[in-house]
């Protein structure tokens, strides 16, 4: 315990210098500003703002990135509530009840509860990281290539379980993502793979390029479809009262607690922890509610629970990153990129070699959350005005921002064209009901998965049973198999029901 406090003290000592506080504030503010633009989610925001941090010292850069991340995430929730456009996968659930509340003129309480829930979740998760970070690092050392491979299979299966539509199509998307991640140089032999001698492809497809295309551009193109205007109707009416009433607070307090608990646990698991957490928290609230029919019609718990869950998960998802070096989701993968640029290799060694960096970042996460609540509660009115900009002016601006953002990452025009191509691919995927999120996760985990698979098989001399004979790996594989069965079962049952319905009619 004493060690814990000395660590946290070290962290706050690093984070509470005027410079770092300022960086955190700027990060949170800019992150919120960009994240609140509809069509630009957390991934795009972080990718776009990543270059700002290049000139800073490593600690400052990571602190600012953490601020940007939380800002972007909160900005995404704001658009979910106000205009029914989720900024990212984790705030999809927030639209269900948040937008309904906004329609009833209760956007203020919804936004406030989202901020308060996020702040509470952030506080709890900060302590959790401090407590669990070190023990988990020891666990990380027990992980060989076989275990890592199984862990990644498990992470990918999580993406399948939570996909909204067909399990089969979600798996297909993951494999497509894995295949896309193969483009570029082979890690071991350096052979150029599927790059067709395009120099810009030699390093592989940039993650930000694909993400911006499949999410940003594809979403814009889809919104331009005739008939989609209905979905982007803004809430033009006045926001009545910013602060939630006493009843709102009493209603949402237990939901925030439960959401935080669920989020903290699920965030630790690699593979879309935050997304899983928000879905799980919403489903859980609905299951235990006395009157489940209120959900989807403006229940404040339906905003409070998923919002605190996704923030808690976003925070605890730093644990696998800092201790195992595994990016648990797309944004974390960008963080790894940022760390590498500063010469930091995430993994078990970082904790020991650069404690001031790790603990400084953990402390700054808490400060980042505090900044968010300070910035956002008074700014709600401003966001609403920003969102009243008509879409016909909004979307060309988003296109330009995205194009400049992608270009600035590598100063490569080819990247911009590639992002455009992935935008069209994303549009096609939406039209065929394929979800882009699993694809992105597959792309992130692909290279790590291949590397560990090759290593594991090399060590076991080509024996494929190694994944089942090593106990830890076997447990992970069994969990993955169990989850997959769980995901497939309901759809099988539904098919059977459909058959019955048909035979009856």
């Amino acid at each position, binding site marked *: 315990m004493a060690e814990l406090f000395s660590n946290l003290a070290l962290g706050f000592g690093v984070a509470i210098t005027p410079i770092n506080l300022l960086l955190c504030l700027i990060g949170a503010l800019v992150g919120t500003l960009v994240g609140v633009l509809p069509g630009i989610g957390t991934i795009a925001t972080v990718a776009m703002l990543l270059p700002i941090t290049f000139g800073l010292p490593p600690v400052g850069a990571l602190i600012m990135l953490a601020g940007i991340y939380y800002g972007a995430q909160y900005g995404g929730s704001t658009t979910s509530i106000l205009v029914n456009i989720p900024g990212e996968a984790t705030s999809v659930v927030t639209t269900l009840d948040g937008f309904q509340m906004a329609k009833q003129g209760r956007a203020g309480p919804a936004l406030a509860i989202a901020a308060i829930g996020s702040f509470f979740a952030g506080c709890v998760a900060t302590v959790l990281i401090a407590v669990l970070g070190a023990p988990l690092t020891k666990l990380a050392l027990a992980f060989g290539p076989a275990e890592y491979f199984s862990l990644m299979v498990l992470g990918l299966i999580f993406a399948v379980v939570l996909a909204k539509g067909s399990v089969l199509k979600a798996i297909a998307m993951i494999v497509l993502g894995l295949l896309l991640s*193969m483009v570029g140089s082979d890690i071991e032999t350096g052979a150029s793979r599927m790059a067709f001698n395009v120099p810009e492809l030699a390093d592989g497809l940039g993650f930000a390029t694909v993400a911006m295309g499949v999410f940003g551009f594809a979403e814009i193109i889809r919104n331009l479809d005739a008939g989609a205007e209905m979905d982007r109707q803004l809430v033009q009416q006045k926001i009545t009262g910013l602060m939630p009433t006493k009843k709102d607070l009493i209603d949402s307090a237990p939901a925030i607690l439960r959401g935080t608990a669920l989020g903290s646990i699920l965030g630790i698991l690699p593979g879309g922890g935050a997304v899983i957490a928000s879905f799980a928290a919403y489903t859980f609230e609905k299951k235990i509610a006395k009157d489940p029919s209120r959900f989807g019609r403006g229940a404040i718990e339906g905003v409070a629970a998923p919002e605190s869950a996704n923030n808690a998960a976003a925070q605890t998802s730093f644990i696998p990153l800092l201790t195992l070096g595994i990016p648990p989701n797309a944004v974390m993968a960008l963080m790894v990129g940022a760390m590498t640029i500063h010469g930091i290799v995430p993994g078990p060694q970082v904790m020991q070699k650069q404690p001031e960096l790790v603990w400084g970042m953990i402390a700054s996460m808490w400060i980042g959350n505090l900044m968010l609540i300070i910035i956002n509660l008074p700014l709600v009115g401003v966001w609403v005005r920003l969102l009243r900009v008509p*879409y016909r002016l909004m979307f060309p601006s988003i*296109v330009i921002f995205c194009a400049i953002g992608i270009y600035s990452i590598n100063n490569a025009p080819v990247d*911009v064209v590639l992002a455009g191509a992935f935008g069209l691919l994303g549009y096609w995927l939406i039209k065929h009901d394929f979800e882009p999120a699993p694809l992105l996760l597959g792309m992130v985990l692909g290279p790590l998965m291949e590397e560990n698979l*090759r290593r594991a098989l090399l060590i076991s001399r080509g024996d494929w049973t190694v994944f089942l004979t090593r106990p830890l790996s076997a447990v992970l594989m069994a969990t993955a198999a169990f989850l997959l069965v769980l995901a497939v079962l309901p759809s099988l049952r539904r098919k059977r029901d459909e058959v019955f319905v048909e035979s009856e009619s």
Partner: protein
Amino acid sequence: MSDRPISGLGQSIMPEWIRAPQDFFGGIALMAIAVFALWASSDLQGMHGFSFGAGTAPRMFAGLLLGLGFAVMVVGVVTEGPRMAGYAWRGPLFVSLSIVSFAITIRPLGLVISAFASFLISALGTLETRWKETIIVGICLTIGCSLLFPYALGLPLQLFPRFLVQ
């Protein structure tokens, strides 16, 4: 020149045994991607002994995708599903054009011209555009970007055409 998505097209042309055209053609497209990847990685070294070659993993995933694409296609034949969604042409065309024009012009012509031109091209993507307003916003946005990215964020972006600067 209406921008309505062409819908119902799928139903009239398609034979009846395809019960979920969306899945059926989605699956076929995935299979096409997989075959393309198999071809593209065919020149890479495969397994030697029990160690992977450069081409093993790509071919493995491509093979897997081929199988999954086939499965999705089969699902499209055996189960009832949504028909093909309509595609709009205006949005995708002008947004893509705008992105490509940005990519081509950013190097030689600089940020100011490139961003403004791309803004106007992408504004063609919807019929809702009102030109006077769009041009004013475009100018403001271009000025904003020229101040934000090179100065505030310190990105190495060229503002004006190369031949003017030299």
